[in-house]
């Protein structure tokens, strides 16, 4: 399949998926994702975030509908497709090899692999060459795989709970690294329930709950449509999508009817959308075909 531009696209059409035929995780999900964005996929535990990533990479097959990643059908798991996409699962696998050994055996499968960048990413993430990889701590193993995945230079990078197991400095380094490697021809898709870890990193937000797409919008659009602020008292409770009492007052998420400027709080956004799905969909006009 040929494209006029280098734009990468993931098209999910009427996706249905479930581990149990009677209880589907996704029902008729339609979504279009394009390169040049860092997507944050947010959802509660068991909402199907990892399942969606596995469908995108071809580890799971849709029960209905279709997925197309830049013209490829992921379920065929063709090498020409797999070398353009890398999934970092929540739990990573490292064999009993040294860093060099791993690089020697695994990197030839990725034509875009950059050895110099790999070394640099390892340094940035503070991963030291200390013998066999399987003897490293979970956090170190995870950082190693993140560095390797980034050095593979795949067009699509899927990260499932990437910050799980990372300490606070490592989370900061991770955010810095992801921002640094991002280019317009790449797509980064991060699934997490640790929403604060994605602050200032993602530029588009996808929220799924109970098999349904509740929100798919850019951070800019969210700031335009919603207002995140702290007030002393609530005058019109009907406008409130979410409220949380804090020491400074009451943090609220309301519809931005007067064009106020505010900083998007992802955690509050998530709570607002999952607690008021219909209202959120109405504000963002989230349709089935998003």
């Amino acid at each position, binding site marked *: 399949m040929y494209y006029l531009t280098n734009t990468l696209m993931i098209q999910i059409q009427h996706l249905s998926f479930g581990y149990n035929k009677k209880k589907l995780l996704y029902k008729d999900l339609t979504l279009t994702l394009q390169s040049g964005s860092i997507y944050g996929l947010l959802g509660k535990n068991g909402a199907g975030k990892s399942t969606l990533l*596995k469908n995108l*990479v*071809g*580890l*799971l*097959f849709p029960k209905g509908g279709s997925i197309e990643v830049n013209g490829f059908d992921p379920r*065929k*798991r*063709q*090498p*020409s497709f*797999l*070398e353009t*996409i*890398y*999934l970092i*699962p929540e*739990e*990573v*696998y490292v*064999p*009993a*090899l040294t860093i060099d*050994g791993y690089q020697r*055996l*695994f990197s*030839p*499968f*990725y034509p875009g692999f950059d050895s110099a960048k790999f070394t640099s990413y390892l340094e940035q993430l503070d991963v030291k060459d200390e013998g066999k990889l399987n003897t490293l701590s979970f956090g170190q193993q995870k950082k190693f795989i993140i560095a390797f995945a980034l050095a593979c230079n795949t067009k699509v990078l899927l990260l499932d709970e990437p910050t799980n197991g990372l300490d606070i400095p490592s989370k900061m380094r991770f955010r810095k690294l992801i921002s640094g490697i991002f280019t317009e021809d790449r797509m980064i898709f991060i699934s997490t329930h640790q929403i604060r870890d994605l602050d200032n990193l993602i530029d588009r937000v996808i929220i799924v709950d109970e098999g349904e797409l509740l929100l798919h919008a850019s951070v800019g659009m969210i700031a335009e449509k919603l207002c995140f602020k702290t007030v002393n008292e609530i005058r019109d409770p009907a406008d409130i999508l979410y409220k949380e009492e804090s020491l400074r007052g009451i943090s609220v998420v309301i519809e931005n009817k007067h064009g106020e400027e505010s900083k998007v709080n992802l955690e509050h956004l998530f709570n607002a959308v999952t607690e008021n799905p219909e209202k959120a969909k109405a504000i963002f006009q989230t349709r089935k075909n998003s």
Partner: protein
Amino acid sequence: MNNTFNARRFGFLFRKTLLERPVQIFGLTGLILTIILMIYFICKVFFGFGPAQNISFIWGLAGGGCFLGSFMFSYFNSNASGSSYLTLPASVFEKWLSAILIAGILYPLLFLLFFRAMDAGFVALYHRGLDATSPLYKIRYDQVYLFSYTGQIAQKVYLIFFMFTGAALTGSLYFNKNNFIKTALVFCVVCVLAFGLNWLMAVMVFGEVRDAAPFHYVEVTVGTGEGEINLPQSAFDIYGIFGDYFFPVLLWSIPFIRLREKEF
């Protein structure tokens, strides 16, 4: 890009398969060969050369091949390694071929070479230990000879190897954890069911049955006499084709289909 087979990519995959888990592949092979050497030696001491050759050949080729085969797709015992294996940019055919090459070609070749060397060594030691001046020298010398790779026993073991290893490869793609044990259990259940049903049918048809083997023979007691009823030659030939070719080919092909369709 060829999405089915690419020699260079296959080379990378084959190297990765061998070197990624050296303990499992090389360690296991070394362990199997060492155990076979011990079995040969112990059996030779207690039962003589014939049983030692037969037992060690059966266990080494069929048992060892089956055990090694169960490790070929053992990536699925953890989410992380299973995902890593399935998303590695190599085709399903290359992944299947890599496992087949190790379990179905390299291991048997290595085993046959090892067995020949081991057997020749023990036989030569025996021959050298004989008293050349003894009048029984010639008889004793001829009593012990090298195990024939083209003999009837060897041919039966080759078939058992193909059946067992094929079953182990197939089982390792259906059972993610403890695949060797689970496959062995399924194999036992299938055998018990086949023999049990066959016995039941033989009893229903012939009455008093002494022994029966599926698709082979039935031994019956009639009055004070005993007799064996064999499958007609034409039917036996058809069964032979199924048993010797169809089932082994099926068991070695299923992993390819299963690998293509596997969700994880």
